[in-house]
């Protein structure tokens, strides 16, 4: 009994300590965003890296998810004779839910894990200590541009995912199953509003970008300096970020109705 309580107490203290460290880490990133030097060059480079890494997978998955949505939507709607609403169904599902969530999960698996592995291997090979010895703050030089790049890239990739998914749905619904092209596009246009749907998808993708950016850089930065540490940081990023994305997706949907 006493030992169970002791374990519970120890775990709670460890969790709180962990959260405290993470809060301090996020605070440090926030400070570096407003304190010079501003590293635009590194930010552009990181944005390019994250974007390019995820581009192919996001476009391909977008088109595939759109195609599946077109097929499923058509099969369901046609029972009610409502296949004219296929554009609206595909569009709303994508913009409100599937776009931001799928993109965030894909980017986590591709660029988030790579980010954590890169920083963790910099820890292992003493590159971060090397920066410290040159009086360069690794959070400023390495972490902040990477985390910020994630926030910038996520809405762009989300938009791209949604665009390719619209296209995938169009190909299946219109070209293959014979829904009228004009009806597909008009119903999509009518169903989506800017203030609810587009703003909502933007909000979600920015929040997800922030979460993935922070989790990936934190797991990398705090990795044990061993090869097992690098692998733990990488898998830990994917697991933690994926679950966090799904939880925050529910919270945002519940709070803002998007």
């Amino acid at each position: 009994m006493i030992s169970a309580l002791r374990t519970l107490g120890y775990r709670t203290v460890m969790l709180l300590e962990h959260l405290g460290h993470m809060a301090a880490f996020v605070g440090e990133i926030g400070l570096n965003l407003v304190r010079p030097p501003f590293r635009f060059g590194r930010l552009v480079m990181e944005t390019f890296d994250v974007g390019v890494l995820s581009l192919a997978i996001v476009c391909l998955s977008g088109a595939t998810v759109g195609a599946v949505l077109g097929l499923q939507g058509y099969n369901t709607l046609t029972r009610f004779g409502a296949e004219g609403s296929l554009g609206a169904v595909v569009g709303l599902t994508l913009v409100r839910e599937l776009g931001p969530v799928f993109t965030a999960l894909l980017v986590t698996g591709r660029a988030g894990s790579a980010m954590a592995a890169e920083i963790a291997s910099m820890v292992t090979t003493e590159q971060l200590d090397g920066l410290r010895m040159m009086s360069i703050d690794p959070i400023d030089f390495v972490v902040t541009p990477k985390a910020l790049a994630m926030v910038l890239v996520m809405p762009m990739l989300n938009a791209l995912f949604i665009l390719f998914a619209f296209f995938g749905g169009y190909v299946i619904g219109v070209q293959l199953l014979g829904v009228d092209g004009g009806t597909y596009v008009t119903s999509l246009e009518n169903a989506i509003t800017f203030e609810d749907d587009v703003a909502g998808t933007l909000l979600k993708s920015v929040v997800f970008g922030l979460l993935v950016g922070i989790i990936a850089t934190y797991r990398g930065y705090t990795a044990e300096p061993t090869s097992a540490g690098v692998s733990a940081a990488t898998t830990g990023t994917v697991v933690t970020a994926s679950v966090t994305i799904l939880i925050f997706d529910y919270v945002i949907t519940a709070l803002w109705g998007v």
Partner: protein
Amino acid sequence: MSEADRIQLEGIHLAFGSRQVYRNLDCRFPRGEISVLMGGSGAGKSTLLRLMAGLLRPDRGRVVVAGEEITSLSERDLFRMRERIGMLFQGGALLDAMTVFENVALPLREHSRLSETDIRAEVERRLVAVGLPDTGGLMPRELSGGMLRRAALARAIVTDPEILICDEPFSGLDPLNVRRIEALLIELNRRLGLTMIVTSHHLPSSLRMASQLVFLIDGGAVVGTPRELLASEDPRVREFLEAETAGMPGFEAVPGVAS
């Protein structure tokens, strides 16, 4: 601390979990001299360097660098303090996403107001000094172990620090490269008066370079000149020296190390 000491460690205690690394360790590193830290694996040589660089804090004790107590400094103040120190890491610790030139130029770009032309000239001068001309465009992964160590040395000294800390600069290198890096370090010390603290397993080069040898044994430090330590009656020092020099011609004649 006397003015002659550049770094002073007082009453250092440090444990990693249940493993006690230092027990009340005291040690001084005189200004302008080369001190070599020796000791078996796990004796805490690299850890001691990390304490001096402020990358690690002791459980107890004082670390004084250039007259400043650093154990209680904030991370920001440590960055200021480290401008006095150059550090050569065992693996080089060059940023692998940057070229050799960009690596060596980085401290100048961050902390000096030099123009790009001056930075270019300065980096080139340092690369020539360490015997690596025309390698600026290479990536660190394209360098051999010895070249990597020398490029890292160029980066460590590019801002003219007062103190140079070298973690195992000779490990894993062939005898030619050992002599080359040893000569570079001695030249830096003589020409610029750099205070150097070097960890090494390599007894011959340690004896050639060091004006002070520091043996880390049983959580403490045994300090002396090479001659004093070679003549030492301390059985722990003798045991280490005998193991290092076993079968090495020329060492049989050294008093106290005859095997």
